[in-house]
Each structure stands twice: as structure tokens, then as C-alpha cells.
């Protein structure tokens, strides 16, 4: 037998295993029993025959299903429908606000005593266009024997409606993540009698103003209102190219930018807290000489921020530092830059790491540089350090991928650090 014949035989053998099995087995299946024939070890087929006890089985199935579905839906909704206010016991006693779930359109909230009941009053009116509009007002019943002493992490997580929060005098502990992603939050006010916290024009600080805790995400809306700019525009991510630009151009003056998109951190501040400026719409941020720490994600995702500079001395009448008192980039007093601190600060063009910095967290400058194509780089595609390379590496505890990177062909290129630089006099 030739090789070819052998191969063909083997192939045919493999292919015909099923056929040979069938040929051997089919006689065991009588022609008149094709729908009933039971294979050994398996259940008997049940085809073209009424099911025994069908009615009882149907009733049982329907009954079980109705009960199961009802119980499931009831308990699921019961779990999902969280009370607007969930409280717990705070460490060291007192009441902690664990989670706030907006009952609908609650825009302002005072955090002084635990809320025991929320009464909603809704009215439907017809507007000029003939469309019906629903208006809701809320009346909160509070238990004055239960003062709120703490705000838990993520207490207001991702609430897109709340605009004003007043922190009562009894609140002594606020987690840095308490107001995380409150996109509509414009101002946080603090009762002047509060022993641990205060506010400066709607921005949250600790009492002695050494730490800035939260700059509300929509603080610019509050400032627009404060300075009499009517209406609102929403700078989307490509806002320079969309319809918002018309509204922006209408408003745009240097004065507008100074009043609404600029913030001067008070000179007493030593620490910018975790997430303090996350998602802000700031263009310019002035840090005081004397600032020591920029905590984790302190200036996270400030897509439009162009300058983070340092100032010394007194502020002018307009609340801004005089040009001669401004130093380019971060203060010399700074020692700590937290992880993801400047993440996505793509509009910045210069960053100077002063000589006293001893810690830089992972991804501190991530997403802050971009290759626009044809060799055009934007953002922080180069970082400048005061120390020389050896001293920098000896002194600074730098986390993984702290410098960031940008596209460079198929593989990204790490942002370069220029060591041993002098701070420039101006941008």
C-alpha cells in the first residue's frame, strides 16, 4: 500500500467512525419507535405526547414565578431606594453623614442636625410655551438632639444637583473625598462658630487656614453670579471650537478671567488637600510662597489651567498679586507633590520643580503633555528641576511614571526632565 493510499485510508477511517457507529446502532432503533427510543443511561424522549399532570405543573410554575419575581423586585427596589440621608455613628461619638442621595432637585443643604424626614411638595405649572413644568420644594425635619459631627468619604459622591452646602458648627471632621464629583457645587459655607473649619468666599479651609480642603467644582458659576455675569456657558472639552465660544467671546475680558477663572490661594495655606481643585475651571492659580504640600490629585483634571505660579507679599486691591511679586511655577517652600497632582493639565506650558521637593507621587504629571503631530508638542512635554540629576535622584522619592509621556510614533515617549535649571523670571 502506497503512502498516499495509507493516508487516504486513515482519513476515511476517521471520517467514517461516526458512520460505522451509526450503521451498527441504527438497527437497535425500530422505525416505529424513533420518537420514543430511549438511550441507555439517558432520559426517555417525550415527543408528541401530552405531559402528565400538565395542569398541576403549569400552576406550580406560574405560582413559583410570580412569587419569585415579586419578592425579587420588592427587595431590589427596597435596597436600591436609599433614604436621602444615611447616617452612622462617627468615630469618637456623634453623628456622621454617610451618604446623601438627592431626593430629586434639592439644591441647597445645611449640615447641622440629622434630617429625620423630607417632605416634598411638587406643583405642576404651565409655562409660556404651553409646556407643563414640575417644581419641587423640600421641607426637611431635623432632630436637634443629633448634631452632625462628621462627613464620611463620598458622602455627596457624584451629586449633579446640589449647589450650596452649609457646614454647621458641630461638624468637626470632613473627609477630603466627601464632595467628590459634585459637579454643580458652587459654594461651601461654614458656620463661623465651627471650631475646625471655615470658608473664604465659598471655598472650604481648615480653621486656621493652613489647609485648603475644597474648591467647589462649579465655583466659577458662583463667581459669575457674584460679579454680575448673566447666563452661563458650559465649556466642554473642545469648548474653544463649539458654540460656547460665542458666549465666551461675549464675556471675555481679562477682567472676567481674573474674576471667574483665577484663584489666589491665601498666604496662610501650607497644604492643598487631596482633590482640592479637582475638575475646576480655573485658568490661573496662584500659590503662596510658604506652601509645603500639594496632596494627591490636588489639581487633578484641570483641563484649562494655564498657569500655576507663586506669589509673595500683599495682594492688590483687585485681590491679585502684583506682577513683580509673582514667581513662575511652584513655590520654593514646596516639599511634596502627590500622585496625579497635575493630571491632564494640558494647557500648562511650564513646570519648575523647586529644590526642596522630596516626594513626587506616581503619575504626578500624567496626561499633561501631548504630541499634536508634525513634531508639535504641547503641555508639559518637558519638566524643569532645580536640582542637578544626581542630587534629584538622591533626594526625591519619585513614584512610577511620575513624569508622564506623550505619543511618539508607535510607542509613547517619556517626558524629559531638565535638571539643574534656574527658575525663569517670566513665562
Amino acid at each position, binding site marked *: 500500500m502506497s503512502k498516499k493510499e495509507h493516508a487516504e485510508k486513515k482519513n476515511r477511517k476517521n471520517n467514517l467512525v*461516526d458512520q460505522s457507529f451509526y450503521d451498527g446502532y441504527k438497527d437497535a432503533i425500530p422505525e416505529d419507535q424513533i420518537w420514543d427510543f430511549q438511550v441507555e443511561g439517558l432520559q426517555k424522549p417525550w415527543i408528541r405526547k401530552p405531559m402528565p399532570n400538565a395542569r398541576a405543573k403549569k400552576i406550580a410554575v406560574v405560582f413559583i414565578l410570580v412569587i419569585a419575581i415579586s419578592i425579587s423586585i420588592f427587595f431590589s427596589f427596597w*435596597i436600591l431606594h436609599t433614604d436621602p440621608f444615611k447616617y452612622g455613628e462617627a468615630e469618637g461619638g456623634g453623628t456622621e453623614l454617610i451618604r446623601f442621595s438627592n431626593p430629586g432637585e434639592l439644591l441647597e443643604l445645611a449640615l447641622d442636625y440629622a434630617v429625620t424626614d423630607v417632605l416634598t411638595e411638587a406643583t405642576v405649572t404651565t409655562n409660556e410655551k404651553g409646556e407643563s413644568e414640575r417644581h419641587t420644594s423640600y421641607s426637611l425635619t431635623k432632630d436637634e438632639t443629633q448634631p452632625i459631627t462628621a462627613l464620611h468619604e*463620598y458622602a455627596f459622591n457624584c451629586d*449633579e444637583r446640589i449647589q450650596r452646602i452649609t457646614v454647621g458648627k458641630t461638624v468637626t471632621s470632613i473627609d477630603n473625598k466627601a464632595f467628590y464629583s459634585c459637579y454643580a457645587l458652587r459654594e461651601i459655607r461654614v458656620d463661623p462658630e465651627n471650631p475646625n473649619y471655615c470658608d473664604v468666599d465659598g471655598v472650604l479651609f481648615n480653621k486656621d487656614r493652613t489647609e485648603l480642603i475644597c474648591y467647589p467644582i462649579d465655583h466659577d458659576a458662583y463667581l459669575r453670579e457674584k460679579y454680575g455675569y448673566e447666563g452661563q456657558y458650559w465649556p466642554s472639552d473642545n469648548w474653544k471650537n463649539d458654540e460656547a465660544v460665542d458666549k465666551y467671546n461675549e464675556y471675555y475680558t481679562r477682567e472676567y478671567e481674573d474674576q471667574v477663572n483665577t484663584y489666589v490661594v491665601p498666604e496662610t495655606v501650607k497644604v492643598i488637600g487631596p482633590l482640592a481643585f479637582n475638575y475646576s475651571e480655573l485658568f490661573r492659580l496662584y500659590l503662596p510662597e510658604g506652601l509645603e504640600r500639594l496632596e494627591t*490629585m490636588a489639581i487633578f483634571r484641570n483641563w484649562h489651567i494655564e498657569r500655576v505660579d507663586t506669589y509673595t507679599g500683599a495682594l492688590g486691591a483687585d485681590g491679585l498679586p502684583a506682577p513683580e511679586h509673582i514667581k513662575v511655577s511652584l513655590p520654593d517652600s514646596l516639599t511634596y507633590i502627590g500622585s496625579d497632582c497635575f493630571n491632564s493639565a494640558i494647557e500648562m506650558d511650564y513646570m519648575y520643580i523647586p529644590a526642596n521637593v522630596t516626594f513626587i507621587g506616581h*503619575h504626578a504629571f500624567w496626561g499633561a503633555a501631548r504630541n499634536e503631530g508634525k513634531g508639535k508638542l504641547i503641555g508639559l512635554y518637558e519638566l524643569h528641576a532645580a536640582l542637578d540629576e544626581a542630587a534629584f535622584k538622591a533626594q526625591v522619592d519619585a513614584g512610577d511614571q511620575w513624569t508622564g509621556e506623550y505619543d511618539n510614533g*508607535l510607542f509613547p515617549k517619556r517626558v524629559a526632565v531638565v535638571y539643574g535649571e534656574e527658575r525663569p523670571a517670566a513665562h
Partner: protein
Amino acid sequence: MAGNALGKVKGVFTEIKTHWKTPAEGKYVPYREYKDIFIAVGSNYAGSKLLEYIWFGAGCYLMMYHYHLPYLTFTIIGLINMPLNYVWAMIGWYINDNLGFLEKKKERIIYSVYFFAIVLGLTLILAPVSRLFDQNGAFVTFMNGLEGINCDSAFKILGTHILWNGWAGSRNIFWRKKLLPKFGRYKYSLYCDFLPKIVMVALIGWIPLWTITDVVERVWKANLLFAAFSIFGFGNSLEACAQNISPNTRERVLVRTYPIKLSHLAHSILAIILPVIIGWLPRKWEDIGLYKWVLPITFGTFAILTMVFSGRIKERIPQPPLEKKVQINFWDGMFGVMRNKYKWIQNIVYLLDSLGNGMLAFTTILYLYTFRLSGLLYSLIVALVSFAGTPPDFFTPFFMKRFSYKQITIFYQFSRALGNGLIVLSLLLFRRNVVLCGSICVVVLILMEMCKTVPTSVGHDMDIRINDYQMYLSGERLESFSGVFGWFTGPITSFVGLIIPLLLLNHGFNSNWDVLFIDDSRLYIIIIPLLIDTVGYLLMAIPYFFWDYDDDKQNKVMAVLRRREEVTAAAQAAEETEATVNE
């Protein structure tokens, strides 16, 4: 040695040439069909994989980076839709398992139900139905307190669900009747869906509903848009067709192991190229250009390729001719699948698997939030992990011969549990060192992937065998009626599936995925679901200890099916001859 190898290659070449258009004796599939399977299934698979970028769920990049919908909202929408799903499922199974061929009277009734649903759905969407209720009453207040939803939008969401089902249901009967006789039960849907699907893929990126500032409005409108998107399918139906391409079980394995497996190459290449293209977008994964340009163009290309090469691929399930097909009424179908003990075992496993429902994709968190990957580097790591599973798959026939389904599946469950355990340990021990921790996780993922592909292939094979067994039991495969188990497990899984989302919510995960940049929160958000999932895998091994369906039983079942086909076909032929003689 070299001559021997050359001889073998020549032999293969000759074999292919000889049987290019006509199959070898005992086989059913000519090699030309292998070529078609390679291209069409590859394109269909790649296209369907691309659609995984577009879905109404928290893990979709469009939701993550643009819509920012609250995490629990998706669960709430599921609950709103749950009761009516039972009704739609009942009607759907009845239609599907009768292949769309219904008695005239029943067809009219079902059409009427569907048209009524369309009208009712539109009414609920367009009319302010919630205003019929006391606005200060308990019901409205309760609904307004749900995450991302209010009473008004809840009715619109319900209306969307009813409209969708009415529309999809009537389409289903219409197209099945029209196309199924020509294209078969697996392929027909591609022919009516592929063009509207291409359009919908484009519209998803070009209708900017994410700019709506009010979250409640954003939720119901997005739900409506995605419902319209999901009316048209582009599932991997050609692969399902190709898996049933031959009554010869060995040939099925051959087709599955070679042309089908190799056809996945198209997706593997795409999985490398696509992230590179995304990496070139200014904002990478967050760039809307992904949904406006990249996905529509790529999907359109694969959809067209699929349709061009799908014509010659045939399903060859041994079955009586359509005229002799066993008619399945609803209760027979339902009790039919419930008699199948293997389906019970499988569904108990799915039930236990629901412990992991609601968890975020670990790899997404690892690649995008721990490693911050994009571009070619992302492609290479993803490709490395997914490719790790390919070589073992070529040994699937060997493993199937050497080990039983039960052994392979139990091994798989334990390997998943062990892998998850190792990942948790690395996250806890090396949390401060992003690169080291991430690297360990990638290595473990590679090992897990290597342990996954053989059980997955064996599982697919067993699913088909269990459908063969169902056909032996009930005279039809009752693939749709198998959903009845979901009726019983659904209420439990939907409740159990709340565990992880609620735990994640407590650790800050809601509508903003950036919370995963916060180290401590990320750690909790990864570890808690992984631990729950690990428990699930260990429990899932238990039911498989009761599995006893083996090759011998399968061969006998197939013999019974072939015998039925033979006898009924002969009867049909005899009837036709008699009719001709009488004429």
C-alpha cells in the same frame, strides 16, 4: 525527514484541491467552505467584538467618559424592565423555536400584541403619564428618589422597553418567515440587520446626548438611543452556523479547531491595530472620535466582508424536513427543557456565577487605571494576554480525548479561583509599586487565559451536544426555550447582582470612573468583587461533580437523531411519490 514533511504538505494540498468543491466521503464540508468560514466568520466575529465597545452599561467607554450615568441606574432600569421581560420571552421562544412558522390565527394574535406594544410604548414615551399620579404621593416620591431616575423618566424607560419589544418582536416574525427558509436559522438575521446596524453604529457617536446636563433626561434618552441600536443584531451567528456545519461530530471539531479558530485572527489583528489608532486620538480612550469615526468605519468594513463571504456557509443539522418538523407549543417547550438535567446543572452554575455580577472588568482597571496604557503598548499587552490562550486551544482535541468534560471544567473553576487569589495577594502586598504589581497581575492573567481556552472550547462543544440531547428528548433543540431557566434564576441573580454595585458605591464608585485614580478606592473597588468572584468559582465547581454526559451517550443520541431524519425523510418521499401517482 524534509522529504517526508514535503510529502505531507503535498498530500494536504492534493486533498484540498481534490475536495475543494465536493467533500470527501463521510464528510459534509468542501474546503471552499473552509475558506468562506475563515473570512466570513472572521469578519463576523471581529465585527461583533467591535460592538462590545457600544453597550448600555457602565463599562462602555461612551458611558465612562461621556455620558457619566450613575452606576446603579443600569440596575434600576433592569428592574423596571424585568416583569415584562417574562412576557416577551414567552412569546419570543414560541416564535423562535418554531422558526417563525406559526399557525395563522396565532400569528395574527401575536402580531396584534406587538403592534399594541408599539402604540403603548410610544404613548408612554411621548405623554407625561406620571402627571396622572399625585405628585406629592408616595409612589412619585419613591420613584423620584431612585438614582438617575424620576417618576416621569421611569415611565419613559418603561415605554422604551415596551416599544422596543413590540418592534423587535414583529420584525422577528416577519424576517424569520421571509429569510429563514433561504438562509437557515443562524444566518438569516445578518441579512436583515447588517445595514441598519451600520447606520446605528454611526448614530451612536453622532447623536451627542451626553451633552444634556440633566442626568435624569440624559439617562432616559440614552436608554432610548441604545434600545434603538440594539434592535438590530450583528451577533456571531455565522460561527454558530459553522459550528453546526456537519452532522459528523469529528468534522465539527475539525471545522471548529481550524477555520473557525484561525478566523479569529482577524479580530486578533484588529485588537492590535485599533488601540494604536485610538492612541493617536488627542484624548485617546476618552476621545469621541472613537465613536464618530473609528468604530463606524471599522465595523462597516467587517460587516460588508461578512455579507460577501457568508453565502456558501451552510448549517447541516440532522433534522426532519420543515414540513415534518415537530411543532412545539409553549408549555411543551418549557417542560421539554426542564426535563434536561444537564441544563439544570449548567443553570445552577450560572446562578452561582451571578455572585460576580456587577463587578467592573478587572483588566480595564488594570490597563487603564493602574498601567495607564494606550496605543501599541496597550495592544501588545492585551494581545499577549489573549494570545496566551491560542496555543493551548490547538490541543483541544487532545484534551477532549484525554480528559472528560467534568474534569476539564472543574479544573477551570479552580484555576480561576486561584488566579483571582494571586491577583488579590499581589494588590495587597505590592500596592505601592504600580509597575511590579501590574506586571504580576499580567503574568497571572496570561496563565489564567492559558487555562481558559480549552475549557471554553470544550464548553462550546458540550453546549452543542446538550442541544443535540435536547433534540433527542423533545424533537427540537429548544435553544430559546432554554431561557426558561433564566426565569427562575433571574429573580435571584438580579438580587444577588446588587451586592457588588452597592459595595462599590460605598467605596466611591458611581458615575465618575476617575475614582479609580484614587489609590485606596481603586484597591477596594478591585479586591472586593474579586474575592466574591473567587467564592463563586469555588462553588461553581460543585455542580459539575454530577455531570455524566460522555462520548458514548453523544454518539447514541446522534444515531437516534439520524435515524429520525432517515425515517421521516423516507416517509416524506413516499408521500410525495404517492401524491404524484394519484395525480
